[in-house]
């Protein structure tokens, strides 16, 4: 029996397919999910999400969010998500530099701070994923 995975962000439905297994980064560490998993609702952390389908592994960088497993349907609700092939390292590095620059002038109590921190985290996750892929 196959699992169905859908990854949804505010902008679009990033991924929707039947898969074999998925490994999700959560606040309590990575969890691997196979068909027949018990119902689960958990918080997703910044990191890489690995999907295996027919022996081929696809990796995605995901942002904060939630994941739900129910009846062989895995739904991931994340603020951001991007597949590895779509990450452009040059663009991402540039963005990281800019975000860190701004972050330095922002105090932790500013409301911008959290957003920037989130951005830096997500960019970090993207870079880690891209570099490991080589």
């Amino acid at each position, binding site marked *: 029996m196959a699992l169905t995975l*859908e990854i949804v962000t505010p902008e679009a439905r990033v991924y929707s397919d039947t898969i074999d297994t998925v490994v999700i980064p959560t606040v309590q560490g990575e969890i691997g999910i196979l068909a027949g998993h018990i119902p689960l*609702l958990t918080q997703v952390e910044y990191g890489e999400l690995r999907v295996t389908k027919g022996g081929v592994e696809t990796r995605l960088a995901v942002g904060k969010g*939630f994941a739900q497993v129910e009846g062989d349907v895995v739904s991931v609700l994340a603020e951001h998500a991007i597949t590895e092939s779509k990450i452009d390292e040059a663009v991402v590095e540039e963005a990281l530099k800019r975000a860190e620059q701004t972050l330095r002038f922002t105090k932790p109590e500013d409301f911008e701070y959290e957003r920037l921190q989130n951005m830096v985290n997500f960019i970090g996750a993207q870079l880690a994923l891209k570099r490991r892929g080589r």
Partner: protein
Amino acid sequence: MASTRDIRRRIKSVKNTRQITKAMELVAASKMKKAQQAALAGRAYTQLMAKMLARLGPRIAEVKHPFLDQREIKTRGILLITTDKGLCGPLNANLFKHVVEVRSPAKFFSIGRKGSQFLARTKRDLVAEFTVSDRLAFAEVKPVVELMVKAYLEGQIDTIEVIYPRFKNTLVQEPTVRPVLPLTSLGEFIANAQREAGDVTTTEDNRDMVFEPSAQEVLEALIPFYVNRHIYQLVVSARASEHSARMVAMKTAKDNATKLLGDLTLEYNKARQAAITAEILEIAAAQFASV
């Protein structure tokens, strides 16, 4: 009767106006399409979130959260979503009617220049104003929500309400006051979320759900997330309303101009004919006199 030259001048100016309103109608139409698509793109996300909240529903009794507390309402916190630009029919004026009806002490937050101007003019307590770009990003709405939530948690305001033009369809936009916080009863709130997200189908799986790290923690993370999302959705809806209202207003203006143009052309032709007739009469009279 006005001279033919005066009428010609008026025809020219009405033609110009028609051209401008026509162009604006087309621009508004294309923007409306985009705004509606944006609203649709976010739909899957909201649906999924409602589904998750629904699953948490039965476990709610165990959870305490400041967003769920019903406090005595001393100061209302109201977010007014208006447009930056005018020429969109009665859209903003209808919203202001709702603002005027607010009699109890309230602090206002505003998205859109028109609303900020109105609040300043009527000397209401405007805490902060924001402008968002046309291609609305989630990150642009977040500071607004964060500021309001902060004020709410600190007790400066006791509710968070949103006054916005709800997008019903292209012709109808309904000025609506939508309470966001506190979430008086979560059951009601979930039902609301589900209704908004449309059809929420739950899959057949009646084994007990496991929450990691715990139901309390998941809910604590999920609720602020939902509030963010909810307000974003309202702004998107307001955006769609704005462009549809502008399109309709511009279409009416264009139609009026066309009608006026017809009337003016008729009047012009009459005047021209009258002038010609008068001229012929004059020539004929002169001839008779010289015979």
